[in-house]
């Protein structure tokens, strides 16, 4: 028996040497990024850490009325650590933020200064306390483990950072599997997951303490299972349904953005039910699952989510001038987002060389053009690649759903709070990372087909470009950031 397990393991490893090498490489790379970047300098790390600490210390969700008072007792060590980081100028001098000045001028309006985090518990954590708790619960297990074996706050925080690599590996694996289902082309899937693994913005997010990492990983499992259901031959998909339900549950319990999957998920179930009418049990399970998903979503969302969500005071708009400002800022935001998606580095955004923007800009433009031409030619009957059209549509649907949500949120924030850059970070789109990268590659593929350049030339350029960017950013920005 033992021998047979050993043989199976050996066969498994032999057949997947390359895959295992890549996963190990991602692990090493992730460790360097998360270990190299100074603590609490990535997006909202203090806030997410505080939530984890609260859960671990108080063994309850931060929902009670005396939450801020409790927070003050449980975060003493954290505040001591922040104070050390704050008062010593050395670790902060290259943070691309003027922390030294922040120290001198306590009222600095900079929303991400250590000073404010140190002195304002509302800012430090309160806004994140309405988030669903799954990622924080996972983090609190690691926190308790770290504390049990005698780790200090800094060590526990790094442990939490390293745990994000686990979510990165899940994301890469399921991006590969998703791309394989949609394209049935192994090379295409390899290129998609290589780009994802090499994207500097992805590396940065998965180096941080942030519930985004869990959301992105679980979302990719959800996407994979949805596509499996869409693409499955006539058969019962009951097991897939159960898995999908739990994956969706995990995603929405990580961050409410997972709500965007509900239409796609219900659509997949209806499609599957209609396609397999004869499989009665299958249809029943599908209907029950669709109902369960919808009901769970409603139950899991915070109280007053919909009523607050839909409150837009149009009366606060101050004339056509403001409407024009809102629209122009929306366009600027989108323009920035396109680049941010590929190269955002949290606080380390610096003035990148123009050739990076130029090359990336040309690729994005060509990709968009490629997709438009693909569908134009498809409807004109110049080609009949229905398989690729279906795959592109499958990628577009979750993206469009997310875009509807974010556009609504942007206008809501712009009208109510006069904030014109939310959601202004590329990482907010990582929930549909694999579909976006697939569309990016598909678009370019079509342009290369039109100009009759072999597909592998495109793949070669893409891998080289993203590998180069990864090396450049690591050596030019991430490693020097260690001078913090």
């Amino acid at each position, binding site marked *: 028996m033992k021998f047979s397990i050993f043989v199976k393991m050996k066969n498994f490893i032999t057949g997947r040497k*390359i895959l295992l*090498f*890549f996963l*190990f*490489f991602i692990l*090493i*790379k992730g*460790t*360097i990024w998360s*270990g*190299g970047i*100074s*603590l609490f300098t990535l997006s909202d790390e203090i806030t997410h850490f505080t939530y984890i600490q609260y859960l671990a210390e108080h063994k309850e969700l931060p929902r009670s009325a005396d939450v801020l008072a409790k927070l003050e007792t449980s975060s003493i060590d954290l505040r001591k650590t922040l104070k*050390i*980081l704050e008062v010593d*100028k*050395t*670790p902060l*001098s*290259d943070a*691309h*933020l*003027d922390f030294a*000045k922040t120290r*001198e*001028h306590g009222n600095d309006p900079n929303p991400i200064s250590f000073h404010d985090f140190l002195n304002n518990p509302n800012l430090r954590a309160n806004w994140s306390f309405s988030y669903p708790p799954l990622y924080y619960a996972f983090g609190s297990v690691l926190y308790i483990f770290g504390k049990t074996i005698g*780790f*200090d706050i*800094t*060590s526990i925080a*790094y442990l939490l950072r390293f745990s994000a690599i686990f979510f990165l590996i899940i994301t890469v694996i399921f991006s590969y599997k998703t791309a394989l289902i949609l394209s*049935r*082309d*192994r*090379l295409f899937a*390899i*290129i998609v997951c*290589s780009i994802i693994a090499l994207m500097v913005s992805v590396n940065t997010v998965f180096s941080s303490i942030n519930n985004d990492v869990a959301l992105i990983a679980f979302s990719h499992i959800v996407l994979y299972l949805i596509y499996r259901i869409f693409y499955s031959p006539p058969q019962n998909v009951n097991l897939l349904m159960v898995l999908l339900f739990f994956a969706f549950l995990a995603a929405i319990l990580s961050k409410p953005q997972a709500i965007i999957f509900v239409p796609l998920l219900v659509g997949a179930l209806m499609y599957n039910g209609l396609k397999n009418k004869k499989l009665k049990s299958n249809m029943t399970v599908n209907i029950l699952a669709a109902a369960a998903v919808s009901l769970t979503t409603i139950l899991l969302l915070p109280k007053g989510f919909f009523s607050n969500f839909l409150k837009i005071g149009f009366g606060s708009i101050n004339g056509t001038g403001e409407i024009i400002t809102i629209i122009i800022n929306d366009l600027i935001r989108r323009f920035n987002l396109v680049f941010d998606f590929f190269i955002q580095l949290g606080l380390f*955004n*610096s*003035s990148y060389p123009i050739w990076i923007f130029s090359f990336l800009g040309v690729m994005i433009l060509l990709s968009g053009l490629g997709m438009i031409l693909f569908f134009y030619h498809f409807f004109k009957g110049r080609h009949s690649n229905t398989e690729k059209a279906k795959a592109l549509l499958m990628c577009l649907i979750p993206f469009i759903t997310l875009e509807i949500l974010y556009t609504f949120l942007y206008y809501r924030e712009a009208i109510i709070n006069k904030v014109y850059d939310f959601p202004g970070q590329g990482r907010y789109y990582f929930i549909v990372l694999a579909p976006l990268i697939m569309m990016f590659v598909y678009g370019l593929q079509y342009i290369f087909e039109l100009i009759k350049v*072999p*597909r*592998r030339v495109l*793949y*070669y350029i893409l*891998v*080289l470009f993203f*590998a*180069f960017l990864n*090396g*450049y950013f*690591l*050596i*030019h920005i991430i*490693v*020097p950031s*260690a*001078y*913090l």
Partner: protein
Amino acid sequence: MKLIAASVAIVVVVPTFFFFGDLFYDQNGPWMDLWSQKVKTYISSARHIEQTIASQNDKFSKLTIPIMARKETLLDMTIINKNGALMRTKKINTRANQQRIEWEFEPLSGLENIYIIKIAIPKTSQKNIVFFLIPANAPGEQALIDNQTMPNKRLAYFTEAKFDSIQEKLKTLFERIKVYKPKIIQLALLPLFSAYVLMFPIAIWMILKIVLNSKNKYDR
């Protein structure tokens, strides 16, 4: 094979070249990413600009100021200390469409020293160049433009220090990378980085090889 080798070499060597070729460090100042600053003011037609700055690093060696240059302009740039003694001076010629002035000079040593940057623009070219002002945190930081104080505004700029040699850069990096990191990370970073340096070219090599062999094996 040669193509892959050359490609991997580019991916590995060029970023390393950037690292070794750049001796500046400790970027500091109110401007880091001007375009993300929500409140900025454009200053055109100025003849004299004065800005008080505090050097945040011990080897202040470079000053970067974002601009929009419409035509070629010759600027007189000066750094004086708080007692009025001339520290550095240079005539800088900006080209049309230039987006920033980068002025490198012999290092000025001493932390938290107060300096005043003075920029003189000839009358004939004063409309050819635009500077940017961003919110000031304190009265002492306010910019002086043509002898008029700009209320709550300061010039957008940043300062940098420079290492004497690449050895010093590596030594400092090795020391600073360990600051506020748990012992285990301090110990693991070097072996991990070595493993990464070894694995990165291999990983890229393998992917590129798969791509090049794709015609027979993977393309449908």
